[in-house]
């Protein structure tokens, strides 16, 4: 799902349009056709297929599939995991972006690179890291277990894996924005007597709120759609540790296509809603967004 979103939002850099005006009409038509055809083939077609398959046997079957206890528990679990992981990454992302954009310190470049790590590491590896950390043969796992704290094959493990995979979204969105805005607004607030917290709340946060919202939306879409890392730490306990993407796989492997596509359609819907929300906000507040990026 997240891949749909990122490629769709990056699809139209406005400068290309200007450059193309000097080309001949034919070239323009061909290019447009290729682009549209590509989008249709790789984005629209699969998406429509998902919905068609989900409703193949009618809305009744669709709803019944979602109401199945195991599927229902997968939906609840996904919402829970995203509900914990997204706020955590909101806080981490803001803190990391703040530190990188507004302060000078040793190891800053290293930290910036580190933030990108989850993007460059395969999600499966991200999951395996937690298995190695908290598994039965690790030092930490049995220790925590003795205090009655189950990490792997339980909600904490799912949350950890999701947090790791979705960490860069908020920070990535905020760092360039905050760097561009500089520190003088904050200094102005401090010089007027505001405390650090007041400065953050009344000055920094309003300045970054649009970037923050985008980051959170993207982070959420990925948190709900994550498969690889979550699959490794989940243990696939039916009705307990299967999130929606995992449930889709199980249902599909059992040839229960309607149910599989019903859950998939729900996930796709979440992604679409995210995308529509982002676009709507962009249109509605375009002036304000432009102003907050201007210095």
């Amino acid at each position: 799902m997240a891949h749909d979103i990122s490629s769709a939002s990056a699809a139209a850099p406005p400068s290309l349009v200007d450059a193309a005006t000097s080309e001949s009409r034919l070239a323009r038509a061909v290019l447009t056709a290729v682009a549209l055809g590509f989008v249709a083939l790789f984005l629209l077609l699969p998406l429509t297929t998902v919905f068609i398959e989900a409703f193949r046997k009618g809305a009744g079957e669709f709803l019944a599939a979602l109401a199945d206890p195991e599927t229902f528990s997968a939906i609840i679990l996904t919402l829970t995991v995203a509900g914990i992981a997204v706020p955590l990454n909101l806080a981490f992302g803001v803190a990391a972006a703040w530190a990188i954009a507004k302060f000078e310190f040793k190891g800053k470049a290293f930290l910036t690179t580190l933030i990108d790590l989850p993007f460059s590491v395969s999600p499966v590896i991200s999951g395996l890291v937690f298995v190695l950390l908290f598994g039965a043969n690790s030092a930490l796992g049995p220790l925590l277990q003795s205090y009655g704290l189950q990490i792997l094959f339980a909600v904490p493990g799912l949350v950890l894996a999701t947090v790791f995979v979705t960490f860069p979204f908020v920070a990535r969105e905020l760092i360039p924005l905050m760097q561009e805005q500089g520190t003088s607004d904050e200094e102005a607030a401090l010089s007027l007597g505001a405390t650090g917290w007041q400065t953050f709340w009344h000055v920094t946060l309003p300045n970054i709120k649009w970037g923050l919202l985008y980051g959170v939306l993207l982070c959420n879409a990925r948190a709900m759609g994550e498969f690889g890392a979550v699959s490794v730490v989940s243990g696939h306990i039916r009705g307990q540790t299967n999130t929606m993407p995992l449930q889709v796989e199980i249902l599909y492997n059992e040839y229960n296509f309607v149910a599989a596509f019903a859950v998939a359609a729900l996930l796709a819907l979440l992604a679409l809603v995210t995308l529509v929300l982002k676009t709507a906000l962009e249109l509605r507040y375009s002036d304000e967004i432009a102003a907050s990026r201007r210095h």
Partner: protein
Amino acid sequence: MEVRVQNIRKAFGRFPALDDVSLDIRSGELIALLGPSGSGKTTLLRLIAGLESPTEGTIFFGDEDASKKSVQQRNIGFVFQHYALFRHMTVLDNISFGLKVRPARRRPPVAEIRRRALDLIDLVQLSGLEKRYPAQLSGGQRQRVALARAMAVEPNVLLLDEPFGALDAQVRKELRKWLREIHDRTGHTTVFVTHDQEEALELADRVVVMSKGAIEQVGTPDEIYDHPVSPFVYRFIGQSSGLNVTLASGEIRFEDRPIGLRDANEADGPATLYFRPHDVELVDGCGGCLAGLVTGSRRVAGTRHLELNLGSAHPSVEIELPPERASSVDQSRIAFRPTKWKLYRRKEDLTAPPLQAQTSAIELAPTGT
């Protein structure tokens, strides 16, 4: 409030931005920090504000050591070079900000905050614009909002970093006069940074000339212009010419000929003679003078500027004469003598910026920060 800066040193890494700077700012005065870009003006201003902490040295606000106080505790008003207005707040909210964020026991009632902000809006002549956002204002208007916002907290000292730097020439001139009026009306101790000597000389009670992280001279505009203490100040403020001369038994000689000027207090040897274009007199029959070929002539408002070539080894020299006096000399070779001048020894010259003929301070001061 009186502000005393004592032996301040500020290093960024190993680079000293300020080196042993001391300065007494009197209560209620309007003082300018003037110097070329990179001379440490902004750094000094930020140190006074508490936005930077000194590597060494102390800063007193009145009798209190302010060095250990945070920027919030110092109660200053800072106007940033690019204003740093809060873009999501209206003019009124921007100006009220400093009062609104006070802890409850020191915060005036809501109505009082509003009244004081509106008074300030009135003072800075922005009545009717209080509901606008910064993006909806012109540069000059933003500048005034920034000033009103800084004044709203009734600061101990007002600090302005290049307050007119980003404005066009016409608006600059207007705001300059207006800032002086506001200062005279409110009496805030005010420090402003500028790289524009005209602005500093016109506006300030006293001018601090800075160069390379050190203070070159502090004085009233008259003192700075009439009695520059170093070749740097001579060149940076106003227009001047510098000529390589030699001293021999108290007599100043140019190209081994006496020019009719004496400086009995200086030892013999090479030196540089500085004078301003308008501090010269024409002499008839050169029995001790400077003489040169007229290579250019321009009428600038009420005076005529003549460009003179004193010999290929020397930079050309500009002098200013009343037009009627200038037109009475019809020959292309004229003789003159500085009426006001100053001699600096070479040793000092080595530490000053490279000498150019007819150096105007505007050329010397790069635009920008």
